[in-house]
């Protein structure tokens, strides 16, 4: 009671940051905290009940209602923080695969960790970002990596995940697992960020 479960949600977020992993959406705990807030709210109303219109409520009522108010506010804040933190992680994931939403949604391991609402959020986020991307797409792709500045035009890559035959601007590649290829970096960038290819010296 009084914020213990909400704290567990925050601890989970913190652990998720520290270990850099996405945990499964904790539906049960979220529901419990929501239930706790509703219980607190009805307790609050019972406590204040007869004094609701009193100009100077008694000391006891004042103290008790303050306590309830703060507990409700804290629980709500923890709930929102938990969800906001997850959204940040999902956005990070989205950008790290070069804005390829299907890549995230078809990955059963990731998909099983998301709540349906989070999938909806990602879809609408993707729609909004795509509009910005499309505005400049004839010159550059905003979703490409921004961590390492380009050094060479061409890269040597090795196939680490089966991806079959792929059409790129530098031609069609029949990628075979374990084989090395050379291609223009910007043309295979999306395959690199999605983990199909790995850059080798």
């Amino acid at each position, binding site marked *: 009671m009084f914020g213990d479960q909400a704290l567990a949600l925050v601890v989970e977020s913190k652990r998720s940051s520290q270990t850099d992993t996405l945990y499964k959406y904790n539906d049960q705990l*979220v*529901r419990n905290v*929501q239930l706790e*807030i*509703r219980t607190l*709210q009805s307790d609050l109303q019972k406590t204040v009940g007869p004094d609701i219109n009193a100009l100077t409520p008694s000391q006891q009522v004042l103290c008790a209602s303050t306590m309830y108010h703060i507990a*409700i*506010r804290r629980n*709500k804040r923890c*709930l*929102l923080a938990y*969800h906001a933190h997850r*959204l940040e992680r999902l*956005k990070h994931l989205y*950008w790290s695969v070069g804005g390829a939403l299907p890549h995230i949604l078809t990955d059963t391991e990731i998909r099983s960790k998301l*709540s349906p*609402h*989070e999938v*909806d*959020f990602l879809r*609408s*986020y993707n729609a*909004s*970002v795509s*509009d*910005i991307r499309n*505005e*400049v797409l*004839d*010159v*550059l*792709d*905003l979703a*490409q990596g*921004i961590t390492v*500045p*380009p050094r*060479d*035009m061409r890269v040597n890559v090795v196939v680490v995940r089966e991806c079959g035959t792929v059409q790129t601007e530098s031609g069609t590649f029949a990628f075979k697992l374990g084989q090395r290829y050379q291609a223009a*970096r*910007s043309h295979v960038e999306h395959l690199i960020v999605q983990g199909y290819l790995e850059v080798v010296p």
Partner: protein
Amino acid sequence: MDFSDSTLDDHLFGIDTDENPIARLIRAWIDERHAPDLLVFQAALIDDLMQKLHEQGLVVSALQSDESTTEEEHLRITLVKTDMERAKFLIRSYMRVRLHKIEKYAAFILQTTEEQQKLSNAELVHAQRYQQMLANHFHATVLDALPESTHALDQTFPDGTSMITRPDRDHPVFVHARVPCPDVLLPDGDKITLEQGSIHLLRYRTIDTLLARGQVNLV
């Protein structure tokens, strides 16, 4: 050469404007990455560079498919293309940093008209849509299951904390003076002069107007 307001300002404040667009982009990019709040979108500069990249791209692909292009010219084309990729990287990073800040402070931006003027149209639309999808998500997952009285997402509490995140304008930044900047007012009332070329650690709030005029840049 267009004489937009910013170049006119540059002349007034004695700043060398003959810098090439890439150098200006690099500065805008570094400033944007270091500033705690959103800076004004460099629309003219970005449009100009986009246009140039587009044209250069056309020239390069025309030359590449031309059979009379010699081996040496192909080498040069590779160099040009590498340079183009680098420019694109800068623009991409610049726009992504902005998107990050816009999403972080979406609620604050949408409250303040001054902030909105710093955004391009596309960015503003994104800020609105983002704030909306955030509110939808919070309602669907958290708030709808709570009592009506707790549904607000923009409260300010008695202890002064607000649910709306604002940029921390007191954040310390390293400032490099591009021109001599006399009489910079510090929070404690003192005035200092930033000598040309010197580097100082100051609160962002104290130098934001100098930064907007391009008299200093962040490092």
